[in-house]
């Protein structure tokens, strides 16, 4: 079993933390992981890409080969389109719909979303609204993870445990808000 995930977004959206969280959940299930992330200059409002590889056998490359990923988890819709070359045929796409317009030539958002929705296996979510409804506007990332959860190669509970372990230090309220957002994401696609 091999499950490769491309996570993408814009610097500052927290893509790396999400990658770490999913990796933690996979490891709790006894799976191997290899994660690759971008630090430094690229993090300053630019395109941010993280690779997360999950397998039940040793993993060689820290980078996912093109055409190899099973899931694209996008925190921004234009960025989702940028990383299509990494997707395997029949791969799933879970993307937020809110654009980050920090460039002058950002395309018409309707065209971006239409392109994205036309792709087989694409789920485009209003993650911001779902996160607000769940009581934490800043947990849009967790909504997306929840929406992708049924595709991940381990049980949903592993994600909940990972949230408890990694947010525990910040207090019960933060843990609860993230669990709610995760659950909201899970319910959104049903």
């Amino acid at each position: 079993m091999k499950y490769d995930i491309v996570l993408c977004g814009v610097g500052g959206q927290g893509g790396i933390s999400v990658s770490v969280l999913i990796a933690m959940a996979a490891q709790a299930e006894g799976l191997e992981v290899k994660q690759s992330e971008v630090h430094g200059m690229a993090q300053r409002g630019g395109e941010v890409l993280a690779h997360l590889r999950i397998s039940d056998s040793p993993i060689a490359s820290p980078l996912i080969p093109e055409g190899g990923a099973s899931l694209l988890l996008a925190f921004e819709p234009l960025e989702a389109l940028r990383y299509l070359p990494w997707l395997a045929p029949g791969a799933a796409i879970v993307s937020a719909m809110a654009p980050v317009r920090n460039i002058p030539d950002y395309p018409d958002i309707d065209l971006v979303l239409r392109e994205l929705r036309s792709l087989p296996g694409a789920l485009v979510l209003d993650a911001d609204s779902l996160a607000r409804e769940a009581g934490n506007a800043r947990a849009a990332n967790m909504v997306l993870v929840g929406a992708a959860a049924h595709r991940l190669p381990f049980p949903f509970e592993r994600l909940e445990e990972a949230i408890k372990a990694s947010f525990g230090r910040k207090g019960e309220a933060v843990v609860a808000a993230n669990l709610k957002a995760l659950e909201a994401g899970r319910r959104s696609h049903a």
Partner: protein
Amino acid sequence: MPFETLMGDEAIALGAVHAGLSAAFAYPGTPSTEIMESCQDLVARGSASIVAQWCANEKTAYESALGASWAGRRTMVSMKHVGLNVAMDPFVNSALLRIKGGLVVVVADDPGMHSSQDEQDSRCLADFARVPCLEPSDQQEAYDKTREAFELSEELRVPVMIRITTRLAHSRARVATVEPKAQNPVAKAEDRWGWTLMPHAARGLWKQALARYEALQARWEGLSGVEAGDCDTGVITTGLALQYWRENLPELAARPWHLHIDRYPMPKAAIAYLASKVRRLIVIEEGAPFVEGALRGILPTGLLIEGKLGGQVPPTGELTPDNIRPALGLAPRAQQACKDLPLPKRPPQLCQGCPHADSYAFLKEGLADYPVHSVNSDIGCYTLGAMAPFEAIETCVDMGASIGMARGASEAGLKPAVAVIGDSTFYHSGLSNLIDAVSHNSDLTVLILDNSTTGMTGAQPTILPSERLAGIVKACGVDPAHVHILEAHKRSHEANVAILKAELAFKGPSVIIAERGCLEAIKKERKA
């Protein structure tokens, strides 16, 4: 055996601590920054009892490490590849010393220039200095080879380099760890002539260094295994190329012979043996064609050698599991793409509300009266001011170059000359240039963007707090009447423009310090 999930940088830090590290020194630089951050984190968590200090620059960090080694203790100095240029003087000379406590220099190269101004390969510099170099290919090896490097350093009494690249530094995997070793006691190197590089002593030490390098090559032959193949092609990999090679191996019709090189000086006999078994040899290495160049030499060998110099592997940028496929005779993998919509690039940019943006606003207005002027800048977040919408700076070369270049331009007749430099970069290498400016009464205005942090690398504290900066500038000899502290904020814009204009008109060195804290640093502080 206990396991931890670690980035390459973290694995090196933990490996060093478990090897009995006593003192770590560094200057932040992507992709090496997390080595020191991890050391400091281990101290904060009570998992290490070591000195772990940021230094003014890589040279001072290296020299501190030398002192710790001289005192008999294990020490590590870490930096990015271009940082090694700054530390080159102590680095090259230290190869001649009779190292006492293990000294490991970790250099993180950045092929592809994710966050750097060049993609130089530190293996070339290790070889130049005759310093042994170990090159891990995954996180476990990063941990293991760091520990091995300390043993080797003390056994052979030589500094040992660990060379990594960006993807290893910043990727995570599980690492099996061992029981930590105890630290060395303080015990000074007693051989004065092993540490005093006066010519009569250095001549002998250099001979010893050359002999040691030769001996090491012979000794390492036994560690280099050639894997047999079933065709007449051979592959040599180094560093992360090993992983990309493994990733593609299942798709190859016939299995090539294979040698992975993980240490330098490289194993000559193993390479010769591999060459005797094949007609074609493909060299895949991250960085410069260091191994390939040595194999090609000048004289014909009768062997077909392929790699970066031959054009089969991309000569620039970073290796990937995909871009080495042509060299292996594999077609590109099938992939989809966004067909109907052009996708604009999203380059990095200054954060919303960044104080540098306000500084650039007053700089541009202040300079508007001078159609001819120069604005030389430096390395940091503010380098992003080269791009739209600011387009406020004209050069970025190396740490501290802004002041030297502005001074040189001014002395050559290009005025007014402005140098834009961050506070951390100023402490790193700007100070000595400012002293030149004072010494020659050069006509330039230095704009220090003081955000009290090293921003681009993730907000590490600067070596001295903001309150000390103006005092240091004045102590360099800049006339206090021409040293100003401004607030880098929109609300002070008019006043800032007026001060800048006055200093541009002044014939002599002046320094304007534009202060306001980095928003990322403030966020980080709140989180902690």
